[in-house]
């Protein structure tokens, strides 16, 4: 085990894999997650709790939609945009999906370049991720404005079941908030990389733990999760 060697990078005996590996990892002393630092493990556990929050929102939506006797508004028409002389169904949502996937791609590359200690590329990719995230939130603000002017409210709408508005504002609003905070933290991490705080191991303002390029990967986990949640919202709320 890595922890038992004196200098931290001596020869390590191979750990068992498979179910036996799970048993030995959980039964070992000090830490169960041998391949993840505490920071990464904590981010994963936070994301698991966030999974339950978004699951409950989508579950509430499923329950409302399948128990109402009033027809559910057709998302394909509600979210259509009039472009180039024709109504294109769901086009704004499709563009938002591509924007968010692109931001996930740039984030994955940023993590990779961070571990290579390539500061310039890391900062550029983190800023690109933040810009794409901000674009996503901007398009969501446009979508909200459009629906509100068309008369969608949490308690009713012109097209069908009144629960449509409540579900829409709650789910997309919560997701948009996640994206917004992600953009904020992307900018903070980009600034830290730019100033070389992860090279020097400067202590963070919040946890006072030494900075490390691994923070970029932890940031990436959060950002990919936001993209992951959008995959489910896109499938269940917009396409279903």
């Amino acid at each position, binding site marked *: 085990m*890595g*922890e038992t060697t004196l200098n*931290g*990078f001596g020869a390590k005996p191979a*750990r068992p894999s498979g179910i036996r590996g*799970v048993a030995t*990892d*959980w039964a070992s002393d000090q830490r*169960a*997650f*041998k*391949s*993840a*630092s505490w*920071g990464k*493990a904590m981010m994963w*556990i936070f994301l*698991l709790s966030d*999974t*339950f929050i978004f699951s409950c929102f989508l*579950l509430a939506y*499923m*329950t*409302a939609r*399948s*128990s109402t*006797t009033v027809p559910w508004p057709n998302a394909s028409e509600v979210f259509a945009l009039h472009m180039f002389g024709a109504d294109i*169904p*769901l086009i704004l949502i*499709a563009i938002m*999906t*591509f924007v968010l*996937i*692109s931001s*996930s*791609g740039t984030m*994955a*590359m940023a993590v*990779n370049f961070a*571990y*290579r200690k390539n500061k310039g590329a890391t900062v550029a990719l983190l800023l690109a991720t933040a810009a794409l995230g901000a674009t996503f939130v901007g398009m969501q603000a446009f979508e909200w404005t459009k629906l509100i002017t068309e008369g969608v409210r949490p308690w009713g709408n012109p097209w069908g079941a009144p629960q449509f508005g409540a579900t829409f504002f709650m789910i997309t609003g919560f997701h948009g908030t996640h994206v917004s905070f992600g953009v904020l933290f992307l900018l903070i991490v980009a600034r830290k990389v730019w100033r070389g705080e992860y090279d020097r*191991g400067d202590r963070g303002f919040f946890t006072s733990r*030494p900075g*490390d*390029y*691994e923070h970029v*990967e932890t940031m*990436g*986990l959060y950002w*990919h*999760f936001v*993209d*992951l949640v959008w*995959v*489910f919202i*896109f*499938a269940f709320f*917009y*396409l*279903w």
Partner: protein
Amino acid sequence: MASHAEQPHRKYSQTAIAEHAEGQQHPIRIYLVVWFWLFVLSACSYLVDYVGFEGYLRWSLILTFMILKAGLIVAVFMHMVWERLALVYAILLPPIAVLVFVAIMAIESDYTALTRMTSFVGGG
């Protein structure tokens, strides 16, 4: 598994060295390939709506593309395939409880819809 790059840092504590050895380092190419497939799968799920498939064909296609996309993001972008099973199980098994909840609420909402249709046909 060429994922665990080890880089000695003399000024860091032993814990920091142990943590640093856990960095995920993979070729750029794999991210680009996954990125490409996420684009293709998103385009496919959009086409399901654009073409106008209905019923079970529509729902099964939506679910298939959704699961493939989610799997790619978690496995490669979030590096889950390179983590040890102790973490993978700790994170991926609890959401099974959500599926049980889905089953319970599906039955419950069907019952609610049924009582609404039988008892409130005249508008309550």
